[in-house]
Each structure stands twice: as C-alpha cells, then as structure tokens.
C-alpha cells in the first residue's frame, strides 16, 4: 500500500515538473500570440478534458508499441520501450493533465494585459527579462493553481495508467489502480482506507486553489 502511495506521489511530482516546463511557455504563447490558428493548438491542448482517458491510453498503446515507427524511434534513442514503464506513465500523464496546468497559467498571463509589459519595455527590458521579471511574478497565483491542479489530476489518473501500465508494483501500480485491485479482490477494508485518503486529498486540493484565488482577488481587486 505504501509503495503505491509513494509511486503515485513520485509520478505526480515528476509529471508536474514537466507540465510546468512545457506548459508555461505554451501558455505564454497562447496568451500573447496574435495568430488566428493559436486556438487550434489551444483546442488540441484542451482535448484531454473531454476525451475518455481510455482513448488516450489506446492510442498511446498503439503509438508507443515497439513495432510502431514512434516506438521504434524511442527504443533506438533510449534503449527501452515506454509502455509498462514509469517513464511511459509520465509521458501519458503529461499529455493527459496538460489542460489542467495550461489553462490557469494562460488566464493569468492574459490578465496581466499589455501595460506592465510595455512599461517594462520602455525601461529597456528585453523579451526574456520581461517574461522572467514581470510576467512570471505577476502570474504567480496562476502558476500555483496550474501546478496544484496538474499534480492533483495526475494523482487521480486511472484510465491511461490502466491501458499502458501493466500493473507492476513499484513501477506502474499507482493508487487508483491499487484501489481498483482491492475492490476486485474483495479487500474492501484496504480499498476504503485508500479511497477515503483520496477524497480527503482532493478536498484539500480544491479548497486550497479556491483560497488562493480569493487571496488574489482581495489583493488585486
């Protein structure tokens, strides 16, 4: 049981790191770009919101298989194939949780508006300086919300993991799969403990994001 909890937290932490690494620049571009087709990209990013996780899991299973072109390329580069590995779960989770991390960050960047950035530009701040010294600090609450939601959503992930995980203890057997297993094998006592833990955790997460938002609204009415 402890192994599943640790693995889940590790998966969520690693996933959140990559979500922020890719998601923040992507959100910045979505917020600032003037190109009409940016909403096409925005839509692709948002797709996991409405697609059943099994659709994503199914395509990942096919695409990452050792025989597929993509799977072959990955195997040639890294020496192993992604399905049934922790790395494979990270790839699946980043795609699956991307909209939860990108959307709040994008909203925060859009809320800044042009004024502070133009002011910074007149003070001879370059584009990178403007991004790191003005935009990022102003978008802090959005960054925090995005990271929390991305983390929490990964903790609750089930369908993708079930499809490409293979239920390997310590490698791919995360909390949600462990709960499912306990229910199937009639060990409801253990299922209860983990399930209640998830409820409490989710409650804490959603409450904290709401408190962050309230705090922000108070400070910047």
């Amino acid at each position, binding site marked *: 049981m402890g192994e599943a909890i640790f693995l889940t937290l590790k998966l969520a932490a690693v996933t959140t790191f990559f979500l922020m690494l890719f998601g923040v620049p992507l959100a910045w571009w979505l917020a600032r770009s003037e190109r009409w087709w940016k909403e096409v990209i925005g839509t692709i990013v948002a797709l996991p919101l409405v697609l059943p996780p099994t659709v994503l899991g199914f395509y990942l299973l096919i695409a990452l*298989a*050792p025989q597929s072109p993509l799977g072959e390329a990955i195997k040639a580069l890294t020496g192993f194939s992604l*399905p*049934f590995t922790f790395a494979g779960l990270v790839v699946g989770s980043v795609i699956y949780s991307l909209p939860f991390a990108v959307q709040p960050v994008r909203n925060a960047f859009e809320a800044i508006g042009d004024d502070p950035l133009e002011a910074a530009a007149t003070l001879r701040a370059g584009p990178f300086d403007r991004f790191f010294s003005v935009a990022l600090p102003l978008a802090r609450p959005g960054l925090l919300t995005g990271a929390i939601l991305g983390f929490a959503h990964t903790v609750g992930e089930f369908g993708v993991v079930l499809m490409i995980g*293979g*239920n390997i203890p310590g490698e791919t057997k995360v909390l949600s799969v462990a709960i499912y297993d306990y229910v*199937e094998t*009639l060990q409801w006592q253990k299922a209860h403990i983990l399930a209640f833990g998830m409820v409490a955790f989710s409650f804490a997460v959603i409450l904290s994001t709401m408190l962050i938002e309230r705090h922000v609204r108070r400070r910047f009415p």
Partner: protein
Amino acid sequence: MKNKSFFVALLVIASAFAATRPSSAETVNVAVAANFTAAAEEIATLFAEETGHEAVLSFGSTGRLYAQILHGAPFSVFLAADQERPRLAAEAGLALADSRFTYALGTLVLFSAEENLFDDGSILERPDDFNRIAIANPASAPYGAAAVETLEALNLYDKLKDRIVQGENITQAFQFVATGNADIGFVALSQVVGEKGGSRWRVPQDLYSPIAQDAVLLKSGADNPAAVSFMAFLKSAAAHKIVQNHGYRTTP
C-alpha cells in the same frame, strides 16, 4: 410549427422502434467473464433465434462483475471464469445455489503475435528471446492465476517475475500481446482459436489446476423466464457445440 413537426417525426421513429420488439419476449442481463466474450455473443444470437428472448451481455473480469453483483448490479445470470465467485454469490444469498453448474473448462495457451517464435514452452527458458510476459491479474482473474501456477510448476516464476505485466482481465492481457507491447503472454485458448498466424503453445493440463467456469442464476433472475431459459439453453447440445468450437471443454 417547425418544432411540432419535429416532435411528430420523433414519435414516429420511436414507435417504429417499439414495434420491432416481439411482444412476448423478455430480456435477460448476463454478466460474462471476459474470456468467454466471443462464445457468449454467439450463444446469445442463437438463443434469440430459438427462444425470442434477448440476452444483453456485460463483459468484465470475474472479480469486478462479482463486486458489482454484490452491490445490486441488475444482472440475472452470472457466467464466471471460476467456481469460487458463483459459490460466494450463492452463500451471500444473491444466487440460487442449486442452479450452479460448470458450463465450460478453459484452456491456457502461451501466445505471441510473432510468427514462428516458438511451438513449445522452451521459449520461457530463453529470456533473451522475448521482452515481457503478459498475464491477466492473478488476484482477480483465474487465467492469471493459472499462468502463475504454470510458471511455478516450471520453476521459472522467480526468474521471470520481473518480466510480467498484468492486464486487468484476460482480454487486456491478450491486447498487450496483440499490439506487440508484450512479446508473449498467457491467454485463453478461446481468444486465439479464431486468430490466424502467431505462435502458440497449448499449456499441458498437468501444469495448472483446471479452469472450471461456473454459471449461476441470480436471485433477481429467478422470476424472469428469459433468465431461466438462458440457463437451460447453456446446457443444450447447440450451446455445447459453440462452447467447444471456441476452445473450451464441456466435460472434464
């Protein structure tokens, strides 16, 4: 006006569908263990032709279906992949104990989507020839338990433990092998009977305990003529033939 004609059209369509149902026919909801999927579909078709009743099939691992039945899932007949779950259902007062019988005996095969990879079990002693072994979850699926038993009987379990990936049920284990994500896997003979190509090894029966699959009539189906008739139909020669064609035995 436009709205009104739309609803009229909808009514006409709805009544057309209603009219296609025979008036005396009943429906039976059957919970079917995943390995029996193809056979059950064929049996349900024949059952509808012969009796006019309709069998609605729900597939899943035996463990999940049992958990659902325990919590009031609307099934009338339970076709499990083992004997334990139907027995437990009867003990819990959810099924009629004397309706329980073995409808099929399953056969375990080692399968690969790759041609000419093996034709006997010796591949298991050459771990360099394959990446992973897919099995069904041994804790909830009898075919998974049989796969572990087989590996233990061959004294290979400890050596190959780290190569095992588990599907939630035997269908998913087969899917891992069919997509090539696992080179080899223990699946049900019923799943590969219709498959052309690939490599297969029928695991000798003395390496694992018989996979006796029991059916039981659930309490909610006792008064349903379609459910009672489906249980009887499973014992008919016509049903037996379908079961055998799908790679099961019907007598030990």
